[in-house]
């Protein structure tokens, strides 16, 4: 019964979205206010119906209703409650419902918070949002019904893939989808602006908070996914250039470019057509990401079950959405008035450079990700493009970008003074030199590490120098500087914090790739292993019973210079329902470096590993293959991402994003930011 209610609610949401996609557009074209005003209640109702459907599906998972096919395929009665809930989106059907739930949530948020948008613009934005909603709701209804019943119901379910039964991955999809789908609002604003043929500072001001919210969520989602890969896949890597990771990185890069170019539109009325294009591309790449994951055209560790019918449907959505918006762009964008002119060396010029580098980096990732598919399409070999390609192309693009981030904010609008800016960045230059020489002295290289840490110091100190200039630190009395700091717009603080976050990430990536130390050896109970100054005493293994798994975990007592530090319990878990073994790494972090331990298989005298029984029934004195890693600065990668997100949140809370451009609008325009 509950499942039928959910199914019915989904179909109602589809019907409502259909109305919302058409009626407000007609209203906006005719200037008919009642027709335009259909949009807001429709958006709220659409959200209500999708939320009902989502709640029904969640209910089916929580009570383990094994008459529902999706529950049978992805749940098990013994699974912990948290993973019963996250199992809702741990499968194709449920994750699509989550997708439209977030889409409808954003639509409802525009309807509720966008009260002060011009009525025609709001009607058009909500109509475009609803079109996307129609496409995905129809996709769910016709190819991926999550409420499909099975008869006769089996006694128990097939359980969720054990790799997905993890707190890190539990919240990865919702955050990632919030990012992907958040760009749909930006997309809708861009399409609405193209229909109206008008892009101005006010438009940029309305778009920026949505772009910021989406980008911040995407940052957090990507960081969480990478953190999960780091501790769950068991070899200390945190980024694999996997197609699905790349699919999330591309909208992130374009979203970052969009954030910056929207500033130029807002402040200088320039770069309009480019910003519109970025807005379309950010969401288009999100859709492409969905297509790549759902259609199975690329193989990936992340890919769900492959169904060609779904692939064709998503491709159709892609062609209509992206093709339609780009066609509109081709027709309408040339007519948009170009705004202020600027010299190449200027704040605008710096932001253009940022955009060019980010867009080129996106193109690189796009080519690397899709090249295998392309080669296959023209009948070539099946190949995969790996990290060497990306390291050789992506990293060189990031080097000038990171170097320029420190300089850009120091330049004036319209016409800047590059030598002057560099001269004022002397402190950053000193910091970079100290970092390079210090690295050389302490570690002696490699060259990439010198460059990376030098850049990180340059950017980190550069961001602080910019802040110090704004508050005129050391030039006016400290109390005055403090007052200036307090009165500084939140957006300015947001920029400084976000750029600091980038510096921290760069340092983390550099150090962890340059100086990871690894030790692989067989250990017997009572033996010790030394790594990076730590001594690990292997105490043996013990069996542990989890709710839906059995595990064998090793006990390592960690000490440093004779002082006990901690005890680590790396484990191997066997999930009997799926017949899968997972590796659980044990990590000791002091926020500067990670000590990372995993156990492999017991030494069973020639029997190949993989048999869970060999694992679980190994004798107490068996030798175990242990792998130890010392990963310097690796936590900084995720700490840096969190700092970037904090910067985004600070900027999002800026009053200026809420109290709009007073001089351009006839009445005060409020644009409340999400989540404040």
């Amino acid at each position, binding site marked *: 019964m509950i499942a039928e209610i959910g199914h019915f609610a989904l179909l109602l949401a589809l019907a409502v979205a259909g109305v919302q996609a058409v009626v407000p557009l007609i209203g906006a074209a005719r200037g008919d206010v009642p027709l335009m005003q259909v949009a807001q209640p429709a958006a709220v109702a659409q959200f209500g119906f999708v939320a009902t459907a989502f709640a029904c599906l969640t209910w089916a998972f929580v009570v383990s209703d094994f008459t529902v096919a999706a529950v049978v395929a992805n749940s098990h009665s013994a699974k912990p409650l948290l993973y019963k809930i996250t199992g809702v989106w741990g499968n194709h059907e449920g994750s699509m419902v989550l997708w439209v739930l977030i889409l409808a949530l954003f639509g409802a948020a525009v309807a509720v918070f966008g009260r002060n948008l011009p009525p025609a613009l709001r009607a058009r934005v909500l109509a475009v949002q609803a079109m996307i909603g129609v496409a995905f709701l129809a996709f769910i209804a016709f190819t991926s019904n999550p409420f499909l019943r099975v008869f006769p119901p089996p006694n128990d379910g*097939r359980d969720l893939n054990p790799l997905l039964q993890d707190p890190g991955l539990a919240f990865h999809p919702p955050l990632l989808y919030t990012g992907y789908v958040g760009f749909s609002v930006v997309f809708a604003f861009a399409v609405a602006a193209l229909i109206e043929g008008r892009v101005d500072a006010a438009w940029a001001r309305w778009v920026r908070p949505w772009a910021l919210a989406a980008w911040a969520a995407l940052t957090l989602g990507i960081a969480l996914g990478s953190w999960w890969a780091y501790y769950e896949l068991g070899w200390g890597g945190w980024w694999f250039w996997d197609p699905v990771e790349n699919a999330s990185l591309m909208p992130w890069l374009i979203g970052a470019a969009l954030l910056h170019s929207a500033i130029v539109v807002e402040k200088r009325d320039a770069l309009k*057509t480019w910003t519109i*294009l970025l807005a*379309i*591309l950010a969401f*288009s790449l999100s859709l492409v990401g969905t*297509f790549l994951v759902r*259609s*199975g*055209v*690329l*193989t990936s560790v992340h890919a769900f079950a*492959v169904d*060609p019918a779904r*692939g*064709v449907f998503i*491709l159709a959505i*892609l*062609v209509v959405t*992206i*093709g339609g918006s*780009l*066609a509109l*762009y*081709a027709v309408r*964008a*040339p007519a948009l008035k170009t705004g202020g002119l600027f010299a190449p060396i200027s704040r605008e010029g710096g932001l253009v450079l940022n955009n060019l580098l980010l867009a080129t980096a996106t193109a690189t990732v796009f080519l690397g990700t*899709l090249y295998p*598919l*392309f080669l*296959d*399409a023209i009948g070539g070999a*099946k190949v995969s493009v790996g990290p060497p390609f990306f390291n050789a192309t992506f990293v060189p693009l990031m080097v000038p970008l990171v170097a320029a981030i420190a300089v850009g904010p120091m330049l004036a609008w319209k016409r800047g003074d590059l030598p002057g800016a560099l001269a004022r960045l002397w402190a950053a230059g000193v910091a970079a030199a100290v970092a390079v020489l210090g690295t050389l002295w302490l570690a002696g290289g490699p060259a990439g590490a010198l460059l990376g840490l030098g850049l990180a110091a340059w950017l980190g100190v550069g961001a602080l120098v910019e802040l110090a200039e704004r508050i005129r630190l050391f030039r006016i009395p400290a109390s005055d500087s403090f007052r200036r700091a307090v009165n500084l717009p939140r957006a300015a603080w947001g920029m400084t914090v976000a750029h600091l976050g980038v510096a921290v990430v760069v340092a983390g990536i550099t150090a962890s790739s340059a100086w990871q130390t690894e030790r692989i050896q067989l250990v017997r109970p009572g033996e010790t292993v030394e790594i990076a100054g730590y001594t690990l005493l292997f105490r043996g293994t013990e069996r542990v019973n989890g709710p839906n798994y059995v595990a064998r975990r090793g006990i390592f007592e960690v000490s440093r210079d004779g002082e006990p530090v901690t005890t680590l319990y790396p484990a191997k878990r066997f999930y*009997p*329902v*799926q*017949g899968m073994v997972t590796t659980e790494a044990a990590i000791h972090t002091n926020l500067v470096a990670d000590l990372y331990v995993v156990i492999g298989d017991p030494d069973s005298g*020639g*029997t*190949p590993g*993989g*048999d*869970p*029984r060999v694992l679980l029934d190994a004798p107490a004195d068996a030798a175990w293959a242990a792998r130890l890693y010392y990963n310097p600065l690796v936590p900084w990668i995720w700490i840096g991402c969190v700092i970037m997100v904090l910067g985004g949140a600070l900027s999002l809370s800026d009053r200026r994003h809420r109290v709009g451009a007073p001089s351009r609008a006839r009445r005060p325009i409020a644009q409340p930011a999400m989540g404040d």
Partner: protein
Amino acid sequence: MRRLIFVLPLVAFAAVAAWFAVGLTRDPTRVPSALIDQPIPAFELPPLPGSGVPGLSDEAIKGKVALVNVFASWCVPCKAEHPILMRLAEERRVPIYGINYKDAEQDARAWLDALGNPYTAIGHDLSGRVSIDWGVYGVPETFVIDRDGRIRHKHVGPITPQILQDEILPLIASLEK
């Protein structure tokens, strides 16, 4: 001229979309088994003690159209397809040979005792070594072997009634002609 620049994204996307469309027609997960139409690999596996059926070797399989099913007691999809194998065995149409993959003796025995034994012979592949020669990368997998001892078809995953009716039985019928 300036207008052309704005058409560029659309053109680029059209190319990408066409490329996606072609990509959709290909299935990257289908790695054709290198063993299709090849003779079965030479092997000899000990019997599963207590199962009451002999062990398995390549010689034993040859001479008749047969199914070779790779299974394990710890594999849930195997449990799902088991009744279908039992029904097929009762029809006595073709011999079904089992390769018991990385399974402890007593577990495999208990499994067969509880669910029934559809297999004419079972090779006990504790280390999984022989299964590697067969190109097995997951359980269950089912191979259709012709009279000359060549692999004619490989099915990955559990056999469903539909797959049995639409793929496996017609193939067996054509091979028996």
